[in-house]
Structure formats: structure tokens, C-alpha cells
């Protein structure tokens, strides 16, 4: 616990523990009702990656993924959390298979919600084919679970953000809660720079990176449904709220999403910068958005961001 940033305090005892700073296990333990979490195929089983040795890379006994069951606000949930400090939270064979199995159980159970605590750069390139397939299987399992009536929530606020195939999985979830630190995208800034040059995207321009992929932009453009301050308490409140508002995935859901994304392209497709998007969205002082405290930003987003229920 020594690496946690103690912020405020609250009656839950979670206090203002920083989501960004917490490990995957700490997030799960503090997010769920106290003492309710049971892990499946935990580190004591030592199910390590069968592939990392080839690259002389260290293994981790849980392969960077924690999955299990517990309760949230008294209701049963299944939960998965990625450890962003191990291999950047990347999807490898074992890492991904745990989440696939959890989602398949949710599909079969048809009513127990799933929380995915994303913290990932995408596919673990050292086992690229296995990781890519894991992403595809997880997306399939998310859609199968949602089609069966299960709510699948994504929470994004870790140090590795949610990139590559992780971004696509996030796009399959029923709803997303995101903090300012929760960057979401497909191609990371370094990859765009490598492929297209620094003129296209300067990965060292941190303000540019944050306003293009960060949580505030995602919330304002409709890529996330709720914005959380960087505390476990705030994510818990968002998760409880989103669980009450989401329905199953149907053809109508995707029809609505088609219209939602069409409108986004029509309105913002010519914008050169996130600040232009925010201004068109109706934000009076777009330049002030990155500096807004969470409470003020949440109030702003509540005024200007479109609701996207049943359109995701």
C-alpha cells in the first residue's frame, strides 16, 4: 500500500485512493464491497505465459490479469482487472483467456454483470498472434454476453490507458466510465509518429496527446458515458450508476450507434484539434477544459455531452 496516494477520506474506508496509482488487485478489492472478492485461477496457481521465456522476459504468476467474483452494492458481479505495470497490461494468451472465460460464464448466467478494469497498451507483441486472437475472442464473448442480456461495464483510468485491441474491446462494452488519466484509442501516439511522422502526431507533445485521447475528450465526444475523478470511490459510484441504466445489445442498439457515429463524423469530421470539437459541442472556453477540476468538468459534460444510452 506504500505506493498509494492518499487523498481525502470517506466512510467507505476507500478514501481517495488514486485509481491511477493503485495496482489491479487494490482496485478490485477497494471497488467491490469489502471482503466480497474471490479470485479465479489466481497467482497461487502459477499459470504464467508459455511464451515470454523466448524473449528472456520475466513472467508474472497471474500473467497480469485478475479475474473473480464479488458483490457491488450488494449485487453479484464478475470482475476482471488488468495490471498495467506488468508488460503494459498487454493481452497475452493466458491474460486474455481468463477474461474470455469470465465473459462466457456471464453469457451462460445471463444476468450477472461484468466489470472490466482496463489498463492496457493492447496486444502483447511478444506473443502477438495469441494476443490478437484473445482480443477477437473477448470481443465475441462480450457481444454474446450482452446479447444474452448481461451488462458489461468498462472502467478506464490506469497508467497504460486502453489502447490497441483494448480500445476495441472497450468499444464493445455496454457503457464506459473514464477518468482524466484514462486515455482510450487504437493507435498509440508513438505508433502514429513511427508510421506517419512527427508532423502527423508529435508523441512528445503531452497536452496534444491528452486532449486527443484523454478521458475528458472521450466523455465530451460521447466515447464514454461517465467521468470519474481519479479515486476508487468515484469509479465505484460511476459503476453503480451505470449498472442501473444499461440494457441488452440488440439490432436497435447498433442502429442507434450507427446514427450516433454518423452524426459525430458530420459534426466534427473536419475538426483539426480536440478544442475545436469541444467548442462545436458548445463548450464556451474550450481552452480551459484540460485544467477543469473533476466536479466542474462533470457539470460541464452533463450540460453539453449527448446521452448515448442504448447507442453503444
Amino acid at each position, binding site marked *: 500500500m506504500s505506493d498509494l496516494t492518499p487523498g481525502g477520506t470517506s466512510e467507505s474506508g476507500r478514501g481517495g485512493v488514486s485509481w491511477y496509482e493503485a495496482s489491479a488487485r487494490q482496485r478490485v478489492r477497494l471497488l467491490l464491497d469489502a471482503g466480497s472478492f474471490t479470485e479465479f485461477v489466481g497467482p497461487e496457481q502459477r499459470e504464467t505465459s508459455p511464451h515470454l521465456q*523466448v524473449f528472456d522476459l520475466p513472467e508474472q504468476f497471474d500473467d497480469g490479469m485478475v479475474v473473480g467474483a464479488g458483490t457491488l452494492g450488494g449485487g453479484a458481479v464478475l470482475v476482471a482487472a488488468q495490471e498495467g505495470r506488468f508488460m503494459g497490461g498487454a493481452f497475452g494468451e493466458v491474460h486474455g*483467456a481468463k477474461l474470455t472465460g469470465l465473459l462466457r460464464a456471464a453469457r451462460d448466467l445471463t444476468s450477472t454483470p461484468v466489470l472490466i478494469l482496463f489498463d492496457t497498451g493492447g496486444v502483447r507483441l511478444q506473443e502477438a498472434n495469441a494476443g490478437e486472437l484473445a482480443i477477437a475472442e473477448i470481443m465475441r464473448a462480450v457481444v454474446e454476453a450482452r446479447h444474452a442480456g448481461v451488462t458489461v461495464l468498462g472502467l478506464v483510468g490506469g497508467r497504460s490507458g486502453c489502447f490497441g485491441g483494448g480500445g476495441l474491446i472497450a468499444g464493445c462494452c455496454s457503457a464506459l466510465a473514464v477518468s482524466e488519466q484514462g486515455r*482510450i484509442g487504437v*493507435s498509440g501516439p*508513438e505508433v502514429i509518429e513511427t508510421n506517419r511522422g512527427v508532423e502527423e502526431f508529435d508523441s512528445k507533445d503531452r497536452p496534444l496527446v491528452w486532449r486527443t485521447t484523454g478521458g475528458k475528450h472521450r466523455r465530451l465526444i460521447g466515447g464514454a458515458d461517465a467521468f470519474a475523478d481519479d479515486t476508487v470511490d468515484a469509479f465505484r459510484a460511476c459503476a453503480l450508476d451505470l449498472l442501473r441504466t444499461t440494457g441488452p445489445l440488440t439490432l436497435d442498439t447498433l442502429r442507434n450507434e450507427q446514427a450516433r457515429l454518423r452524426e459525430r463524423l458530420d459534426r466534427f469530421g473536419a475538426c483539426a484539434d480536440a478544442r475545436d470539437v469541444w467548442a462545436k459541442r458548445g463548450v464556451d472556453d474550450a481552452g480551459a477544459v484540460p485544467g477543469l477540476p473533476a466536479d466542474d468538468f462533470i457539470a460541464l459534460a452533463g450540460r453539453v455531452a449527448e446521452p448515448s444510452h442504448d447507442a453503444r
Partner: protein
Amino acid sequence: MTLDEILQSLFPDGHDIARTDGLLSGSATMKGGAVAAVIGVEGRAPLGVDGALKLGGHVLDALERGGDAPVIVLVDSDSQRMSKRDELLGLNEFLAHLAKGLILADLRGRPTVGILYGHTAAGAFIATALATRVLVGLPGAEPEVMDLPSMARVTKLSVEVLTEKARSTPVFAPGLDNLARTGGVLETWDPSKPLADQLAAVLGRADTRDRRDALGKERGGRPKAADIAERVRELATRAG
């Protein structure tokens, strides 16, 4: 095979497929008369927000029309379009939208078949060919997860080291055979025989459950995924 040859061999009874900006969308007559929906990417085009939304809309239109005819996805693409604009607009949502449409099609009784006849990579691959029920390859297809220069940037390993590893490590290396070993590609078709027959044969082997991890175990490319997933599924089902 060129795309024209592929379409001719797949749909000898005719097709009506528009080809614009590297995107394919339309319909084709199957053996027996059913009219399949067809989407795809050609000419190694990158898949960005505009293309993904167009293809996704075509899939949803086909679902709206109803019936149980297949949805065919032909792929010779670049990776996802790598640009500031695409990321700014939320490319992850657009690619996920296309994938969700394809997966929903399958769940609603419209079998989806991916045909990889050229290159593909990364997010474009996940959103198209890998979102189908069955993925087949044609000889010469070149799937990869990420180009080596980008991999070098991300892994902090040199391109030389990665090239060497790619020769010796199937789970990491690009290529149709390596991907097939992980269970991602069901089979490679024989271009000297009518593709329509091979498509019909694949459709006849209906398996609506995702069995790619089991296939990867059988073939030795993914020794652990199927067992781990099943163990977690059993434990979670009991706990839930």
C-alpha cells in the same frame, strides 16, 4: 488470385458489389439462390472511421432486411488508419461498431465468413476478418499483428532482433500459417478448385460457438488458452 478472379469463383451466379475507396459493399448470389451480403477491404487500404462506419452500416442494412443468408467479409487491407483525425474522432468505437455488427449477425443466424486474400493487420484485422464465425485464407495471404518498425518502437527491441525472432517463433511471427496455428484461421482454400464449393462446405460445418481456442490447442499454437478459459468459466458459473 486477383479480387475479380476470387469473386468470379466464389459467386459464379453473379454479384453486385460496389468498389469505392478500397471498400467493398454489396450482395452476391450463393449456390442455391440465397443472396449473401458482402463487405470488404481491397488494395491494402487502411480502415479508418469513415470506412468502418460505411461497412458497419451495410451489415446492419442486411440484418434489417432479414433472412438467414451469410455475410461474407473479403479482406486485403492495411492496418487501421493511423492518423490524428481518426484517433480524435474515436476510431476504437467505429471499429468496434463494425465488429459488433458482424458478431450480432452471426448470433442472429446469419453465418459470417471471413476470406483473407491479401494483407491485413492490427485493428483492421480484428474489426473485419477476426469478427467472423469462420475465417479462411487463400494462399499468399499475409496477416500480421503489427509492422516490425512499430513493434520495435513499442517493444524497445531492434528490427534485426525482431526479424530473427520472427523466423523462429510462430506465436509472434506474421503469416497465415502462424496465425492458423493459434486457431485464428480455420483452413486455407485451394484456388484451383471452385471457391463457391469450398464456401458451401465451410457453411455446412456450422458451429456457432467460438472454438478458436480449442483449435489453437489442437494445433499447438496456443497451448493454454482453451483450458484457462474453461477453468475460469466453470468457476465463475458456480460463483455467479
